């Protein structure tokens, strides 16, 4: 898969409350509405200006906090192609896999990438290409790659059950 877009760069410990505020977790359920509040408490400009294929870049512990999977899915619905971080919080990483959102770990790429620059990600080759060069990221563990390849946990579960 090839992902092409612009970089939205943020800092360390971007938490689930600023990605998808807790007050919306039971009241905003339509995908288009969810996209509109993505990153609301971190960057009010994001939802208005994000384009399909754009990439979010964070520092360490990206997605810390709640288990709410809307913090992953709202980015998918807003068109985000991938998230790159130095490290991911555990629940966020799982939620990304379960929603088929590439969550890529590459500290070097994070240091090199600048807000607003163009980026290209080749998930098959495991490469991030940008102005500073080409950065490799590690593949998903083989046990979970099937979930990602199926398009997420729900299609994967259907497949497992022969449905």
């Amino acid at each position, binding site marked *: 898969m090839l992902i092409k877009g612009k970089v939205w760069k943020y800092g360390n410990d971007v938490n689930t409350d600023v990605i998808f505020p807790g007050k919306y977790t*039971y009241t905003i359920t339509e995908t288009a509405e969810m996209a509109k509040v993505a990153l609301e408490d971190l960057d009010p400009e994001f939802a208005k200006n994000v384009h399909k294929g754009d990439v979010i870049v964070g520092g360490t512990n990206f997605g810390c906090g709640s288990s709410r999977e809307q913090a992953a899915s709202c980015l998918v619905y807003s068109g985000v192609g991938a998230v790159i971080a130095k490290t991911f919080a555990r629940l966020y990483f799982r939620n990304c896999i379960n929603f088929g959102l590439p969550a890529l770990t590459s500290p070097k790429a994070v240091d090199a990438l600048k807000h607003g620059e163009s980026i290209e990600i080749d998930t098959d080759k495991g490469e991030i290409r940008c102005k500073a060069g080409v950065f490799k990221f590690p593949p998903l563990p083989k046990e*979970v790659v099937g979930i990602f390849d199926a398009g997420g946990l729900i299609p994967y579960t259907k497949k497992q059950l022969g449905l």
Partner: protein
Amino acid sequence: MGKTFSEKILGQKVGKDVVPGEIIEVEPDVAMSHDNTAAISKTFYKIGVDQVYKPGMHVVILDHCTPAANEKFAENHKDIREFVRKQGIRNFYDIHVGICHQVMHEKGHVWPGALIVGSDSHSTSYGAFGAFSAGIGRSEMAAIMARGKIWLRVPETIKIVVDGEFPEAVSAKDLMLKIAREIGADGALYKAIEFCGPTIDRMSVASRFVFTNMAVEIGAKAGYMIPNQATLGYLKDRVSQPFEVIESDPNAEYEAEYHFDVSTLEPMIAKPHTVDNVVPVSEVKGTRIDQIFFGSCTNARVEDFEIVAEILRGKRVHPDVRMLVFPASQEVYLEVLKKGWIQELVEAGCVIMNPGCGPCMGNHEGVPANGEVVLATSNRNFKGRLGNKESFVYLVSPRTAAMSALTGKIEDCWY
């Protein structure tokens, strides 16, 4: 080489030796979900299955917005009641029972050696009872309802050893905040944490819970303690099935080990907007406050009420402060009511709310206004956490909260 508690519990589940880093598929003993069960049920039906794989595995507890704040929440609760009825999920607790992480152990759904998952990040809590427990996502809970299984990575383990006697006025919450400060919000990412040492062994059930509850705030997948006598006594009349305490081997391998001595510990406070932005309370003493949120799965149990009632007895909450009080559960509520503490808190000017999560994720019951400062006994102070990104949340112990309630400013109870 010996095995850690995680390697043992997860190994038992798959019937073979497992090592850290290994990914396994397991069937949990217990799977907890709360108000998010409505969304989970919709995802479950999307999979194309009609019947929940094992209804007895599931525990559903309404606590996140109880009673319903508006028609959306009301419909949500209604969907859940219909779902549990239809699916024969008998372990259902409606809005009057309490916060999920408290109700789980009160009602016997937690036991040593159990493998528990919950679609809530603070599901790490049950490790205080010797269980392996971790948070999962909504879709993952739906998949468990459909086929009973989930993948888990066997975690490396970090050991936190605590020694020394707490000075008077310093408690479990102060230590947990100190641990967050030292280890950092990502210090235990993907890891299991084993809390041990003489101080942990001596602590009450309620105090021990604070650590495994907040283990996720430093990134952990699971928190764990060997159940002490107080814990086993607490569980005795609550848990119906036989269980075996599972302990790490003495020669188990830990990825890191941290030592804390509490004998010189001061009251601690987490400043806005991260849980590891912790300083001694003395550094922010005098900061004006608008509201106190005394509640949450971290600190709203009987021993917390005892401290707060002692401080507020016969006194008045400062007129510029609104003090909101949420007992952790119906059981806690009844006990503190019988002791007369609720009356004392009402007389002091507190607002007594129903057991539940309250404003913890900003749904209702105490959302702060722009620029307001809230002292919370809960576990998270992210920007917007209580429903308004223009407010400021500090995390404290119940004692610091109560002392500050009297003066309307952050007070240092260190003496």
